[in-house]
């Protein structure tokens, strides 16, 4: 018998909300509805459930937020399981159940493009062991050796005796068996389900409005809450005048959270939102009320010349080589604060009693959300549960910062036993994010008398994400994540070799809270590196492709992707009249990426005609979804380049909504051609890395078109008209 504790079967039927149409929304609590109806034991192992009707339920611990991980992970399990893909559905195990079962699903973290590359081995093992248990169950029933039983698409056959059965028929017997130790995994070359451009499993509900996101949760008897937080980060509530809302309908309570957030609880959210905005709140704005974007820029700029800095990568003696160089080139770049701007604002629904707390929320890390719930509930995690909802965008905002979960639980504690849904307004969301950090970078390069590059030095100054969100991961005070794409090796290796190299970071942390933001520090670091190397190529009067390749001999996969985009765009032949090209390449999130953009500038207006992008992610689990991620990465990366900037005035973020924080729309969207070229032997991420090449490829093309080198983003502040 397996010693693994079986899941309990539960489901929860929601009633209709308020008056009007009677709708019975059904909200699974991490467990399939079908199971709830029978109480049948059909969990083969932690990852695989097989129903008597042949339905295969694959458990996914990571979060689906649009990136397709739900489908990709299911493909990996199904590949080893050898089930019929047509019968596959998925479900989320809950973090509380995982805790109860000794973290049997391991990490729930969904960030850093790690969903698949960090879990492919054990999820495939889950599929493989389940397959062998099903095979053993059939063999035992027939009293034949398991080795004589073959499997295809969920059908088990004993050819010698001409007998066959199905997964559904032996599932209950298989579920009683011990989970075998390591079962050999397939060679990816033999994959038939993984590696295929299969359709996503989560599309149907999304096109008819049935997909339930966190913001859509409706529970019986639920109340709603809206909040205002001190507009200046770090400020507190001085006083609240409730007079203006005395006669407002539906209002139940006004509560203050940790002396920095004011919440109104009401029957409906619109009532709560109207009331909280009508309150007269006086804030004690604290010590940062005078901070501005200019003061932050000055503070960060000082780090460019500071005597000490953390070293991220070093070979040879770059300062000495620069001192003796025949010619030096120097440039300083900067990158602004940016907001994630998920389409679904922050939200969480909580129900709290003295001995139990439950939370329904969109989260990129169910376990972190559970820890946040437990802390704010003042209960052990064993008495708490988190039900993960689909995310209306994540992009890093809902991974490490569960401020909205803390708040929802604190609010629910004022209404014991009553579920309360907290939903932030877009304005709260925009002004209380965890922002893409600000940095500046001073780059210097030396040429010898023959025009060869002898040294490169990059001094980054600015904000550390780790210092803000997980200081325990600093190493001797240094934030090594700051050096993404400048590292000596690994997932974020610099993809050039220079005779002398020095990359440093002077940490300067303003009061604006930073966070992981899709692409993280690769985004600005690749702008710095790829635009600067383009500057060097032009300084040397060399072709930007040929110039790059000269330093890429030790990075053959980067050479391959770069050459692939050059070939596809037709680098050897001139572009159409008035059209100009730019290149960029990098290694990020363990994948090798390159892009070439074609742009034109007419009367100061940039038009991006065409982008070709190549990705070598090692193994491609779903090429069609990788293409979708590449396309989406250009929207995210080019939105940031064209428009993305949060400015600070009086200690607060000035942008409050999409009218002042513009993003790309349909008419801005260039044609994107994706080249997915997995070379095998490693697992690279796909959700983020392409973002890093989006901006520099376009900026380099823009330089080719105008002669203007843009070193400060976003682009909308620059006049592109001919001088």
């Amino acid at each position, binding site marked *: 018998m397996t010693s693994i504790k079986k899941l309990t079967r539960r489901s929860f039927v929601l009633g*209709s*909300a*308020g*008056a*009007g*149409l009677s*709708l019975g*929304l059904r909200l699974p609590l991490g467990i399939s509805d079908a199971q709830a109806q029978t109480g049948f034991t059909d969990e083969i192992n932690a990852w695989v459930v097989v129903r008597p009707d042949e339905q295969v339920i694959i458990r996914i611990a990571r979060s689906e*937020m*649009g*990136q*397709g991980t739900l489908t990709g992970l299911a493909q990996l399990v199904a590949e080893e399981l050898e089930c019929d893909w047509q019968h596959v559905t998925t479900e989320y195990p809950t973090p509380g159940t995982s805790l109860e079962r000794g973290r049997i699903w391991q990490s729930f973290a969904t960030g850093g493009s790690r969903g698949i590359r960090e879990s492919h081995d054990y999820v495939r093992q889950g599929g493989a062991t389940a397959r062998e248990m099903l095979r053993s169950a059939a063999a035992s029933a027939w009293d034949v050796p398991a080795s004589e039983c073959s499997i295809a698409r969920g059908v088990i056959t004993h050819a010698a005796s001409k007998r066959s059965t199905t997964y559904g028929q032996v599932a209950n017997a298989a579920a009683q068996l011990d989970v075998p130790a390591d079962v050999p995994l397939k060679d990816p070359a033999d994959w038939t389900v993984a590696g295929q451009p299969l*359709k*996503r499993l*989560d*599309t*149907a509900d*999304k*096109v*008819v*409005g*049935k997909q*339930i*996101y966190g*913001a*859509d949760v*409706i529970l019986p008897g639920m109340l*709603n809450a809206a909040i205002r937080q001190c507009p200046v980060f770090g400020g507190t509530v001085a006083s609240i005048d409730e007079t203006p809302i005395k006669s407002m*309908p539906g209002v139940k309570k006004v509560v203050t959270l940790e002396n920095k957030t004011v919440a109104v609880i009401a029957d*409906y*959210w*619109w009532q709560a939102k109207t009331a909280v905005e009508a309150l007269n709140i006086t804030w004690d704005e604290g010590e940062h009320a005078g901070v501005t974007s200019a003061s932050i820029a000055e503070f960060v700029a000082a780090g460019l010349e500071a005597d000490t800095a953390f070293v991220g990568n070093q070979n040879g003696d770059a300062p000495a080589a620069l001192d003796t160089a025949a010619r030096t080139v120097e440039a300083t770049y900067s990158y602004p604060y940016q907001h994630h701007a*998920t*389409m*679904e*604002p922050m939200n969480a629904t909580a129900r709290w009693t003295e001995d139990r707390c439950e939370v329904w929320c969109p989260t990129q890390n169910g376990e972190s959300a559970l820890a946040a719930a437990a802390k704010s509930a003042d209960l052990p995690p064993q008495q708490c549960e988190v039900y993960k909802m*689909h*995310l*209306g*965008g994540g*992009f890093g905002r809902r991974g490490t910062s569960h401020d909205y979960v803390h708040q929802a639980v604190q609010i629910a504690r004022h209404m014991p036993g009553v579920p309360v849904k907290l*939903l932030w*307004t*877009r304005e709260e969301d925009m002004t209380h994010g965890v922002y893409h950090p600000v940095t500046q970078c001073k780059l210097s390069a030396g040429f010898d008398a023959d025009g060869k590059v002898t040294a490169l030095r990059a001094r980054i100054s600015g904000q550390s994400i780790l210092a803000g969100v997980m200081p325990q991961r600093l190493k001797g005070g240094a934030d090594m994540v700051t050096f993404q794409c400048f590292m000596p090796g690994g997932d974020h290796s610099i993809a050039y070799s220079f005779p002398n190299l020095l990359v440093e970071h002077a940490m300067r942390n303003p009061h604006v809270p930073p966070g992981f933001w899709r692409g993280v520090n690769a985004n600005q670091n690749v702008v710095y590196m790829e635009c600067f190397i383009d500057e060097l190529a032009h300084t040397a009067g060399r072709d930007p492709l040929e110039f790059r390749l000269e330093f890429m001999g030790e990075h053959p996969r980067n050479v391959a992707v770069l050459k692939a985009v050059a070939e596809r765009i037709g680098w050897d032949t001139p572009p159409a009249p008035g059209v100009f090209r730019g290149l960029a390449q990098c290694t990020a999130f363990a994948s090798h990426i390159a892009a070439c953009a074609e742009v034109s500038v007419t009367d100061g207006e940039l038009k991006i005609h065409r982008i070709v992008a190549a990705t070598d992610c090692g193994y491609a689990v779903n090429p069609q979804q990788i293409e*979708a991620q590449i*396309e*989406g*990465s*250009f*929207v*995210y990366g080019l939105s940031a380049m064209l428009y993305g900037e949060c400015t600070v005035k009086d200690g607060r973020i000035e942008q409050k*909504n*999409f*009218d002042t924080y513009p*993003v*790309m*729309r*349909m008419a801005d*969207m260039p*044609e994107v051609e994706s080249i997915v070229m997995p070379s095998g032997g490693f697992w690279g991420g796909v959700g983020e890395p392409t973002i890093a090449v989006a901006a520099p490829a376009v900026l380099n093309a823009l330089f080719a078109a105008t002669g203007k080198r843009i070193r400060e983003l976003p682009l909308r502040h620059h006049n592109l008209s001919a001088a």
Partner: protein
Amino acid sequence: MPKLNVNGNAVEVEADSATPLLWVLREQLALTGTKYGCGIAQCGACTVLLNGAAVRSCVLPLAAVSETDEVITIEGLSSDGSHPLQAAWVELDVPQCGYCQTGMIMAAAALLAEKPKPSDEDIDAAMTNICRCGTYRRVRAGIHRAAGTTA
């Protein structure tokens, strides 16, 4: 109590006449397929059809909608997800996170009702909804597929 005609059903709701239609749909009628994104008619996640035209319901007060106006939400676009746009969206795997997609589909439905064979320029002009995952290319392809046109 205010009366509305939503997806062909006559309904009564309990809400102040200043309440935006979006919140009446979501909170009173539990029609949560219509999304809140910005509240200021910028993003289009709340798009519904009002007498066939795409409107951003987050800024449309209940007072501006009478019981003779026909409101269609994503839940009422088809009974079974078979509207040509919904079929095209499934065929092309358009959604990523999906949060903006119901509004996208409703905006596209209004466009096709007015221009059954839209050009790319028509699509650019009509489809101003925001998608942060970056599905624009597939949204465009989905509209063309539903319309039987090519880009």
